[in-house]
């Protein structure tokens, strides 16, 4: 087992959402300057690797991109997701101990169906990695801990019905910040109850409270769940200087969190204090991952003791932690029928707003309540772009653990929806066979992705 920390640094210096958008070329410039000047890439246990591209097939394993993968992703997206996959490979193979995908663009707001860009994200890098690790390496239980100031709603949605992926997100209270979700009652679907845990923190929360949550909730839950692989969705906008968040985390706090969590892989998410936070937080995380002393990393305007936690805030968070820990500990005793109702399908309606692309999406989601597997998922989606007629989409996802019954039912539903003519696009994502189909009504054409060509 190698003791090395792998770093893929991909600042995408030639990619931006728009010239003045926070997600622009300049974002990792000062981080580059800092990690280069510090000479950390010369440290013997840090290895810098060149990124590689994810394939369209890797994306189709997770997302229903409307109309097709090619129309929603740029090369930069493929590189960011590919970087996480590359590090995942090397960590599983044992040639790296852990890794940091310090990449742009981010992805944790991207949901299963992609009509456009949400919260600066098109493609969910963590989700692409998870499905890849399961397909390629047979990894089963995976935990994702999201430390971005914004709720990781995309990641939550993708794994909401998946009992083998534990998703924990702590973030600024959704009543005060985008995307307005991530409350404690969002706990996962009927077949994956309490595999989603949300810790909404009051604005102004400092390192002290943040680390309290880590020690008293996140670490005990992780220990119970015993994942084979831990991913940190490493957003850095909880920093006290971040222009989009109102929290008071410091670089030291982030490093301490990283050390305690000890993730296999950290994947960069948000963080838009590009000068006052990113160079320091990124350096601190890299040092923490590689086991180096990070106590000398300090923001220019920070001094120890600068932020004092209010006792009320800490009490409030302590109560929430106790409550969530109770839910976690009693997850197997919960009365699922009482919580979710009975019937062949569990179903819910959702409205999703794409803040970057101004798309309003209505979703109707159905999960097959299968006694033998986590069940297939049907999504009917209607996206209004504010011009033209809305896109109507029918999508079925068959989880990798699906039973043969669910697989067959899903295939039937796909064929039926194709004939029905109610939908512009019909998709079938069969993770058991790694086959992804899509059908476009207007062209009466079907595409099938059966896997990337083997590398030459």
């Amino acid at each position, binding site marked *: 087992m190698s003791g090395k920390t792998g770093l893929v640094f991909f600042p995408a210096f030639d990619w931006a959402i728009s010239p003045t958008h926070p997600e622009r070329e300049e974002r990792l410039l000062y981080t*580059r*300057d800092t990690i280069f000047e510090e000479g*950390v890439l*010369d440290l013997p246990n840090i290895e810098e690797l060149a990124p590689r591209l994810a394939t369209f097939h890797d994306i189709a394993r997770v997302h229903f991109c409307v109309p097709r993968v090619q129309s929603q992703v740029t090369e930069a997206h493929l590189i960011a997701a590919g970087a996480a996959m590359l590090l995942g490979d090397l960590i599983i193979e044992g040639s790296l101990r852990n890794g940091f995908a310090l990449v742009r663009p981010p992805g944790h707001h991207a949901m299963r169906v992609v009509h456009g860009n949400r919260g600066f994200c098109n493609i969910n890098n963590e989700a692409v990695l998870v499905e890849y690790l399961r397909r390629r390496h047979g990894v089963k239980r995976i935990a994702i801990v999201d430390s971005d100031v914004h709720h990781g709603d995309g990641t939550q949605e993708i794994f909401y019905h998946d009992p083998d992926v534990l998703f924990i997100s702590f973030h600024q209270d959704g009543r005060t910040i985008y995307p307005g979700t991530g409350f404690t009652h969002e706990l996962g679907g009927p077949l994956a109850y309490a595999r989603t845990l949300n810790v909404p923190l009051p604005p102004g929360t400092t390192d002290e409270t943040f680390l309290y949550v880590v020690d008293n909730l996140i670490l005990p839950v992780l220990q119970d769940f015993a994942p084979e692989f831990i991913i940190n969705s490493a957003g850095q906008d909880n920093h006290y200087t971040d222009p989009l968040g109102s929290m008071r985390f410091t670089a030291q706090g982030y490093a301490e969190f990283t050390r305690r969590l000890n993730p296999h892989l950290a994947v960069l998410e948000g963080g838009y204090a590009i000068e006052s936070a990113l160079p320091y937080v990124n350096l601190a995380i890299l040092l923490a991952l590689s086991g180096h002393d990070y106590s000398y990393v300090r923001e*220019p305007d920070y001094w120890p003791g600068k932020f004092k936690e209010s006792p009320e805030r800490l009490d409030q968070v302590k109560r929430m932690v106790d409550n969530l820990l109770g839910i976690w500990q009693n997850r197997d005793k919960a009365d699922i029928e009482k919580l979710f109702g009975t019937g062949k399908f569990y179903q819910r309606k959702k409205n999703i707003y794409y803040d970057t692309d101004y798309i309003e999406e209505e979703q109707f989601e159905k999960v097959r309540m299968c006694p033998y597997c986590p069940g297939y998922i049907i999504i009917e989606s209607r996206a209004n772009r504010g011009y033209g007629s809305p896109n109507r989409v029918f999508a079925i996802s068959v989880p990798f653990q699906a039973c043969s019954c669910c697989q067959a039912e899903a295939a039937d539903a796909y064929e039926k929806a194709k004939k029905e003519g109610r939908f512009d696009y019909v998709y079938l994502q069969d993770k058991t066979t790694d086959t992804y189909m899509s059908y476009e009504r207007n062209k009466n054409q079907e595409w099938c992705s059966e896997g990337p060509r083997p590398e030459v």
Partner: protein
Amino acid sequence: MFIGIDVGGTFTDAVLLDRGMVKATAKVVTRQDLLSSLLEALDSILQGVSPDLIERVVFSTTVITNLIAEKKYDPVGLIIIPGPGLSHAHYRFATQTHIINGAIDYRGREIIPLDLKQVEQAVEELEAAGYNKVAVVGKFSSRNNKHEKEIEKYIKLLHPQWQVELGHTVAGQLNFPRRVVSTMLTCATREKYEFFVRSVFQALEQRGLQAEIYILRADGGTMRLKNSTKAPIETIFSGPAASTLGVQALLPPGETAVVVDIGGTTSDLALLLSGQPLLATRGVCIYNQLTHVRALAVKSVPVGGDTTLSRQQNRIVLLPGRQGPPFCLDGPAPTPTDALRVLGLFHKGDYDKARQAMHMLGAELNLSCTETAVRVVDLVVDTIVQEINEMFKSWEQEPSYRVWEVLQKKKVRPTTVVGVGGGAAGLITQIAARMNCQPVLPPYASVANAIGAAVARPTLRVSLRADTQQGVYTIQEEGFQGKIEDGNFNEEKAIALARTWLQRRAENAGLTSSLGEVEIIRREVFNVVRNWVTCGKIFDIGVQTQRGILHYIGGGGR
């Protein structure tokens, strides 16, 4: 006519070139007294040639490399300003080191003022310990050299005779620990290097040479010898650069080739990609110390003609290092050279002893002498081919920070394998066959290094970084920082400014005539946006004169 002289540890090689024709070559033993070896080599190639016909003399040398290897230099005290970041425990350099409080950030802003009290104390302690050479290096000093200059001013006031070297003048690239080492080595070797330069001038003067005198850098460019005292450490490791350029000159232009220099104990590998030698992306490691010295990418493989062979169970293995000459030349143990001798690919030494060596290795394995020899050659060829493939792979895996860079990465494989060095003749054909390439054993391969020195182009580069929000710019190579007065400063003006500086550098170096085309090697523009408003731009511009060689070597006699 051009002269190239490679002052190596064992031999001093020299060539005389006349417009791409090799007119004379010489190989003399390098003696302790450098001057006498130089003169001997010069006299040998200048027979019957008038000294005024010589336009240019270029040296490549291991003088500085050896100084550093043998630690034959004066102690250098260190004053560093690392500020926050990596733990200061990382800055344990092998000399008296003083850490001063103060910090500059990545955009060159002072975030912690310099603590002059600590400087005062550091200088007192250095004086007490008998130092008179000091390297002063600050983190991000290439973005703002204020702190380094303040310390220099203080030292010079108290000790005008001390030699003070500042980090920003030695290396402009980011990487503070490497800048510390580069500055220390510069400070340490300057005096000795100046002595070497004086002896060279003396030798040439004695032979009446009026030519321009240059020295080769590790990156394959040349600089005027008299200007080179500014950057002595850039001349180290110019040996491998010399032989790679030599091969480049001996091949047709534009070829993608591997240069395999097979020596006694090691083989050096270098790459020519579409005719240009590959540069290492980061500075080289000098005796376990990482520096900012730019160099060609050269990989040393611990396999050569004299590598010791041994048998472990039913396998023949290569042991690293050299025990002595080959068995057929009265050495102690079997070597690849013995195998080549048995196969008729090498013609010196005792044939029967070579067979005996193969017998020692192969008898237990029930192999005949010839079979053993074939197996040995296969092993050596395999090892070298594997290293060549690794080198291409690691070149392909260099990190990229832009989308287009990632996308344009292609798999490139060589078409030609070029052998130089003593062991090349017997092995190069088989290495090439294994790689599906053409083998080439160029003429004059034994003096390829001197040819490389003779034809190397003088190169200059300028790296400009301008920050319009702050209204400042820096020229990395000069350690210069200035103000941007123009309110409408833009990309074109940034490039023009970089070109002006290149021109100025060229004039100072006396290089205006042979500069050739100026190419833009880097042009990056970043909008500085604060609160959704573009409030400035950062320009990162690199310009350089053409790299490469002045002449290809045609046929022609001696």
